């Protein structure tokens, strides 16, 4: 099996809990190494001494929020499981990691797979899961191989499978591979895909996975990073975990910094203790020499863009007033939300002043047009129109009225679709036009030949 390169630079501001061992030079993916470092001790203790309800309560107490995009509290999600139906309960780990700008789950899967397995088996035990799955994207073939091998090791040690550690509880874990479709990251699309169908998302209500999920049975879908947190919550107790970070924004998060910064990479930071300015300038080394900031995408490419120099003014839930620039926005769940966007999947993309912002949107629009599943007309047609208009603009065919046209297409998608891909594809266009209207209008003044012959292209 190929091995994965370790990142040697861990920033001193990081607080590594999930990635504690991942990049240590002498740490490997074998179960022996994992157990030498205390691995599976939490699971052993939990199945021997704790009741499932207690574990669920720990996760509730921890206030941990989902790391996949929506930031929904995991404890609450588990509580919604329909237990009255008497149907088997399924657990699915969402390892589709496909929101552009996100590459954190990759680190866990490739460098510390047993941590994910232990987190999943604790979750399975806590929720009474009958069978668990990991849905991993096709483009991580090595990750799938690593997970399958790790599962066999864990099975040989009776950490999963029949009668786990003599507890009387049985649960198997299966790796399922996607086939390069982004929409499989959406939890109901993922479920359809796991059933062996096209990944057409289901409409909510009534198809909330906790009630009607896989095979119409109650199902939990959680992100890789969320499930790893479960291990640490059970280990230190929910109340202790809740002391890390800030109320409602507990724990650490693995932020993925990419784009046009000096030190792109993943950084695990305590929630609420840093700002986007810290991440981009201090930890990420700032912009390349001679370059100025143009825009920041704060949480995966579907999150609403911020323009350099803009101010965010308002009142937080607790009444405190704020007046922030991009660099002041707290690096947690609530900060970017207060600033009109979201932390989403934790993918921060930095854009400097050397690129044409119209072309940036054209690149994003090409992604969402490619990834629409095609079920809903507004998303299928709208994402394609937005792509066509922005591609034409980038290639020298911009018209002054394009800004309004784009905004109107975006406005006709969001809120009118089966799944949140509608918002995911509309938000970039809506926010780019709102924030960079002048540049989209100016684009019409560019010499078409100059646009056509440009040497740097993104579409």
């Amino acid at each position, binding site marked *: 099996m*190929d091995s994965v390169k370790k990142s040697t630079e861990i920033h001193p501001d990081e607080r590594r809990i999930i990635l504690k061992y991942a990049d240590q030079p002498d740490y490997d993916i074998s179960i022996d190494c994992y157990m030498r470092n205390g691995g599976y001790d939490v699971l052993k203790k939990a199945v021997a001494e704790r009741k499932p309800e207690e574990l669920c309560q720990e996760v509730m107490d921890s206030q941990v929020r989902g790391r996949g995009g929506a930031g929904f509290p995991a404890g609450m999600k588990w509580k919604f499981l329909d237990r009255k139906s008497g149907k*088997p309960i399924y657990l699915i780990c969402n390892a589709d*990691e*496909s*929101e*552009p*700008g*996100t*590459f954190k*789950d*990759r680190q866990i899967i490739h460098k510390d797979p047993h941590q994910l397995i232990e987190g999943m088996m604790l979750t399975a035990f806590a929720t009474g899961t009958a*069978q668990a799955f990991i849905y991993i*994207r*096709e*483009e*991580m*073939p*090595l990750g799938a191989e690593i997970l399958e091998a790790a599962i066999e090791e864990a099975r040989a040690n009776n950490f999963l499978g029949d009668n786990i550690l003599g507890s009387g509880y049985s649960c*198997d874990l*299966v790796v*399922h*591979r*996607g*086939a*390069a*479709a*982004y929409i499989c990251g959406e939890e109901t699309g993922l479920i359809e*895909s*796991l*059933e*062996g*169908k*096209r*990944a057409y998302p289901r409409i909510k209500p009534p198809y909330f996975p906790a009630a009607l999920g896989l*095979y119409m049975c109650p199902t939990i879908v959680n992100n890789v990073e969320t499930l790893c947190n479960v291990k640490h919550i059970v280990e230190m107790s929910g109340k202790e975990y809740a002391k890390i970070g800030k109320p409602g924004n507990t724990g650490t998060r693995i932020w*993925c*910094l*990419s*784009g*046009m910064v000096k030190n*792109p*990479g*993943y950084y695990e930071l305590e929630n609420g203790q840093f700002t986007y300015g810290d991440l981009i300038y201090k930890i990420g080394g700032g912009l390349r020499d001679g370059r100025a900031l143009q825009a920041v*995408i704060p949480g995966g*490419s579907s999150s609403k863009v911020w323009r350099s120099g803009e101010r965010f003014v308002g009142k937080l839930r607790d009444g405190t007033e704020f007046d922030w620039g991009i660099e002041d926005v707290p690096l947690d769940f609530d900060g970017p939300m207060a600033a009109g966007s979201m932390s989403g999947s934790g*993918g921060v*993309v930095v*854009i400097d002043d050397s*690129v044409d912002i119209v072309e*940036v949107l054209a*690149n*994003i629009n*090409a*992604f969402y047009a*490619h*990834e629409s*599943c095609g079920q809903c007309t507004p998303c299928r047609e709208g994402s394609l129109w937005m792509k066509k208009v922005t591609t034409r603009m980038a290639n020298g065919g911009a018209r002054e009225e394009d800004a309004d046209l784009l905004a109107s297409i975006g406005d006709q998608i969001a809120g009118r679709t089966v799944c949140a891909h509608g918002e995911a594809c509309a938000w970039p266009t809506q926010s780019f036009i709102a924030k960079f209207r002048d540049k989209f209008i100016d684009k019409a003044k560019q010499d078409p030949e100059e646009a056509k012959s440009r040497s*740097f*292209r*993104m579409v």
Partner: protein
Amino acid sequence: MAFELSPETLSYIEKVIPRYPQKRSAIMMILHAIQKEKGYLSLEAQKWVAEKLELPPIQVREVVTFYPFYREHPIGKRHIRVCRTLSCALNGSYKICDQFKKEFDTELDDISPDGRVTVEFAECLASCGTAPVAMVDDKLYENLNEEQVEAICEQIKKETPAIDPAQAES
């Protein structure tokens, strides 16, 4: 000719079906295994899967035609996928893709004239921190630059024999 699979693929398929509570769930894993062996998913292959899982053939074909990774036609011997999404594009992935095409004298999505490769664009490969990136078959290459692409192409040419163009015509 009847559709046949290697004993390894067959035994893998027998192993993978019972992993799922319902047989239909095994479609994707079976398609992966067959595409790996055959290079693509012919209609015969799809019919075989349908029979194996006792499903109407359309339920297999609708899966094959939905997911970008499954293909109904052969590609070059090596599969080059260059990430075209934002963080990679900001770091020059379009140029990287052009270089791959030039090295093999081919167009996007076509089989190169020497039969060695098919170059495609891929959407975000979840490695944006080391952009630009590309995959060659199952292997990820990160922080690509001109020299590295050249080295990768050279290695492919060394490892993968070209097909005779006359044979390619027929």
